[in-house]
């Protein structure tokens, strides 16, 4: 397992601490991990795009939000996903294809009061990923989303949103070992899955 990604180049675009943790996990699995396109030689096998809330998952009613905050917490991160996907396409096509994995929030899939902008980002990112999956499959690129809980996407946060009222079936996967390990299996496995969202929340949400 430790050499699963030997010889692979992984680009983790953004995501702050989430990106750092996943990058460390991929590195321990043998990948050469970069955090910026400019650090690579212009090509990669795997691109991970964490979709995180610039507001640190701080709740705010929409009625109290000014336009600048709306742009910061909705339009800017959604635009960053678009940019990251376009950068991913460029570096993966250099190698004849590869894998793109977005890390998206589960709260956007079921809705969460006081998190409207980030919910929009999460669902927008998933739809954008599907469009990319359809468009880039012929170029050997798969695009999938892994859905994570608020605690996974904002480590250290005290849960302000209860995703469901039912406890998860399993322990919540951690970023560095479990999530990175799952990404690695997508990276080396056959290219048969694309345009999907897989729940990596320990079996919490099962309605989607």
């Amino acid at each position, binding site marked *: 397992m430790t050499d699963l990604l030997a010889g692979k180049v992984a680009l983790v675009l953004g995501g702050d601490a989430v990106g750092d943790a996943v990058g460390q996990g991929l590195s321990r699995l043998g990948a050469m991990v970069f955090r910026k396109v400019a650090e690579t030689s212009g090509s990669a096998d795997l691109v991970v795009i964490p979709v995180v809330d610039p507001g640190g998952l701080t709740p705010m009613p929409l009625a109290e939000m000014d336009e600048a905050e709306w742009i910061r917490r909705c339009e800017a991160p959604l635009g960053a996903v678009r940019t990251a996907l*376009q950068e991913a396409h460029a570096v993966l096509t250099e190698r004849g294809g590869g894998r793109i994995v977005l890390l998206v929030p589960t709260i956007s899939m079921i809705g969460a009061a006081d998190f409207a902008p980030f919910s*929009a980002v*999460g669902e927008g990112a998933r739809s954008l990923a599907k469009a990319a999956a359809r468009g880039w499959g012929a170029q050997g690129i798969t695009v999938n989303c892994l859905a994570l809980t608020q605690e996974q996407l904002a480590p250290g946060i005290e849960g302000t949103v209860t995703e469901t009222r039912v406890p998860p079936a399993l322990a919540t996967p951690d970023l560095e070992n479990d999530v990175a390990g799952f990404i690695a299996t997508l990276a080396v496995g056959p290219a048969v899955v694309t345009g999907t969202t897989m729940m990596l929340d320990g079996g919490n949400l099962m309605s989607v």
Partner: protein
Amino acid sequence: MLSGKTVLLTGASQGVGKGMALAAAAAGASVVITARNLDAAESVAQEIRSVGGRALALRCDVTDRGEVEAMVAATLQEFGRLDALVHNATSRFSGRGARLDKVTDEDWNDQIAVGMRATFHCAQAALPALKATGGSFIILTSNAGIEGSLPLPVYSAIKGAQRGLTKSLAREWGPDGVRVNAIAPVAMTPAMGKFFDAQPEMRGYIESGAALRRVGDPQADIGPVLNFLIGPDSSFITGQTLLVNGGATMV
């Protein structure tokens, strides 16, 4: 069904918006038709008045916060209440196809402004009035926001984002009695008509993909669903996306 209610629609001078406006008026609502082109909005308002309905036409650029607030204020001044704001307006670039790697900043920024910024403006501007009536905020989304569209990635992103917004605002505003839902229609519009004129074979292709073997009519097929969402029979429905597509997509 909608007697005594006031419904405001953005982007309502043609296509699905116009069809929904006519249907709401036929159901007894006072209707506010807004569009970038006032003459086009007024044409729809006249059509409603010609059969005894109540309608007001307003020019509104939904990307401008001041115009959106003025639109709501004018509605309240004219009709005294707001029971539903239906955000249907889309960017003039929304039908311009390009694979994601070819999408330009211009395409992205214009569509975001109408799709996302405008939704934000409309939601904030309408909330106080909707709280007063226990009304509804309704967003027109698309199958592209559910399944992704190869030639329309930006449109897909926005329509998906609007679904996320629908769910969260439904949870946020529910305690205040305001419902938030989305409609994902497939209906004949001027843009679709032009598309079929240019590629006649596509009409048959799209119709054959629907279980009901046809493309919807904005007034006859989409309008009643809007009326249902605004009216009392849907009072326990919120946070949902209703797919009104003849069975083209089933989730």
